[in-house]
């Protein structure tokens, strides 16, 4: 409490060292926990990646077709080749990749019927750049193709169709059906996941904390009413409520997903905060605040709230994990983010069909990223709870 009211510091006047507050004590406990530090580093790394992607520093051109369709990943192969290079003079990297290079999909890749003519002409012209330009202008399909691409939902202006010959035959993390880099997509998916996870968690926490504080603090009829409201939301299974709202909203996008998850998910924090307020409102410090004339609002949020904020923080952290998982499922089902952005859920949806064709890399990338982030966040949440409440365990 002393940390919450740093109005004056009598301890400093008489020359006694000030005792550390709840947060600095918790921070010290957290830093002593090796698992907590490791998971925190991972989470921070993911956050930095998401921020970098939000500002367009990485994965900006996730929507451009930089490689051939289903370009295979070479990350492990090149690592392997580097390791074996010393023993075997020449690595078998070349031919192996050639063998893996997937059959081109005629519909998407060889969509230009004039391709062969262009190549022929170009050879005749001795690879003159102007020759290519000329042919391109004559191509009667250019407009149609551009329109079709727009219809396919890959608008954004970000599409930059790299010339066929410039397309990479393989990428470190591979490419998807359209030749988009899986690495860029999975990074963009990180941004979506963390954005949705945090925004929805904050929304749910604000709603749940406000309602829980009012219900627990005032009690009586207010409490009865809010409890009734809570029991309504609580009696409908979470996923059913989410799907019902998704059915009604009929609109896709990050904001919709945040609203759906936030508006349905507030119940668990409501119960916790309400119980805390019921416990705290009768305590001496609250009665003392009442005696010096603090208003209800002041007592609720200036006096009690700092004392229960650790509970709120742990709940917030739990929410992020739950909402990241829910967003993936919603996007997988097609009720989540739209086609103009990437989610691990929509990647899994594409990956499901790719797996049967033998293209496993998109599935692996989305799974790996999600598993690492969620594991780290869960471990961090556990450590945070232990650090904030040493009485547990």
């Amino acid at each position: 409490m002393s940390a919450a009211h740093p109005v004056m510091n009598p301890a400093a006047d008489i020359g006694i060292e000030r005792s550390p507050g709840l947060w600095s004590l918790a921070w010290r406990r957290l830093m002593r926990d090796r698992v907590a530090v490791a998971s925190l580093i991972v989470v921070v790394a993911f956050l930095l990646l998401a921020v970098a992607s939000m500002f367009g520093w990485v994965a900006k051109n996730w929507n451009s077709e930089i490689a051939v369709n289903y370009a295979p990943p070479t990350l492990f192969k090149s690592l392997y080749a580097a390791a074996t290079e010393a023993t075997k003079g020449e690595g078998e990297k070349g031919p192996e990749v050639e063998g893996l290079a997937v059959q081109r999909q005629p519909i998407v890749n060889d969509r230009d019927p004039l391709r062969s003519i262009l190549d022929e002409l170009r050879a005749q012209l001795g690879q003159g750049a102007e020759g290519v330009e000329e042919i391109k202008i004559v191509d009667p399909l250019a407009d149609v193709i551009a329109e079709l691409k727009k219809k396919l939902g890959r608008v954004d202006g970000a599409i930059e169709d790299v010339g066929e010959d410039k397309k990479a035959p393989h990428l470190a993390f591979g490419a998807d059906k359209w030749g988009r880099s899986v690495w860029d997509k999975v990074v963009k998916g990180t941004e979506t996941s963390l954005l949705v996870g945090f925004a929805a968690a904050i929304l749910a926490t604000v709603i749940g904390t406000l309602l829980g504080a009012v219900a627990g603090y005032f009690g009586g009829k207010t409490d009865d009413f809010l409890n009734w409201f809570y029991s309504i939301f609580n009696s409908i299974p979470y996923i059913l409520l989410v799907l019902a709202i998704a059915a009604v909203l009929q609109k896709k996008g990050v904001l919709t997903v945040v609203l759906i998850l936030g508006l349905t998910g507030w119940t668990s924090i409501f119960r916790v905060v309400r119980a805390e307020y019921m416990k705290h409102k009768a305590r001496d410090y609250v009665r003392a605040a009442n005696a010096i004339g603090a208003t209800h609002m002041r007592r609720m949020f200036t006096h009690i709230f700092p004392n229960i904020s650790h509970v709120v923080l742990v709940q917030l952290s739990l929410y992020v994990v739950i909402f990241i998982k829910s967003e993936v499922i919603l996007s997988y089902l097609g009720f989540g983010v739209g086609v103009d952005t990437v989610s691990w859920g929509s990647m899994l949806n594409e990956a499901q069909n790719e797996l049967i064709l033998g293209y496993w890399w998109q599935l692996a990338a989305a799974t790996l990223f999600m598993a690492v982030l969620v594991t780290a966040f869960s471990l961090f949440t556990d450590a945070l709870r232990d650090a904030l409440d040493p009485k547990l365990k």
Partner: protein
Amino acid sequence: MTAYIIRRLWQIVPTMAGVILLIFLLFNVVGGDPAYLLAGKISNAEQIANIRKQLGIDEPYWYQLLLFVKQVVTFDFGQSWSTNEAVSSIFATRLPNSLLIGVPLLILETIIAIAIALVVAYKRGSLTDRSVMVSCTVAQSISILVYIIVLQYVLAYKLGWFPVQGWGNGFFENLFKYAALPIIIALAVSLAPNIRLYRTFLLDEVNQDYVRTARAKGLSENRVMLVHVLRNAAIPIITNLMIQLPGLLVGLFLIERFFSVPGIGREVILAVERSDFPVIKAITVYVALATMLANLLADLLYKAVDPRVELK
């Protein structure tokens, strides 16, 4: 006891009224005019006008609400907007299929999770305990979608041990042929959280005085753990089981969808995809009711297992 049950049933009424109101607000007020949604499916303007009349959309909200309450009470939600199948018939034909996967799953999952939790709680802090706990955390972090996609691909598609998807007519054919893989996948997903939960329940008990007494009077470890500890930990375990009961209805929606099992969960997703409001409304209302009844059942069982519990 009877008085308690009656009072609790009576308490369901206002909550149920709230659920009906919420669903009504969502679908009839926020959801807007369903005629627009139907317009895509039915081209005839006359038909739309007819349907509007049937649904009572031209009527004031209070009348629509009354209509909705009548539907809930009489179990008659009319017909699905997309397939024209009666909603009651959807329930009757889909529910057994959901239960055919859900019930064996719940039984297996409880037995296996308790067994593993007993072992790790007994060897608390050991390498076994810690490695099981770490694997549980990791297992929980992988999306259920990945479990389904990978296990369906490997076990059904590649190895051919199970049918990739489908559903038959015979009970045993469904149980042993088509439900087997869905149950295995659902087990893989649900074991980790349940083991963690049951472990904490058991750990709350293993340090109690009565356990030390039981050991002091020379009982075998098996008897201490399986009879004394397990019986006391049964109270929260039963509560958890009861809370999971309503999940049997829609909880396996992803698995039902992947394996084309004609169950309630798959029906929900189909209904959301097709904006089939009557089906979603009916399923939501009745699953909410089932949830409340399951909670009541949990409290009653609580009392039956632990006579110290006072029902008030």
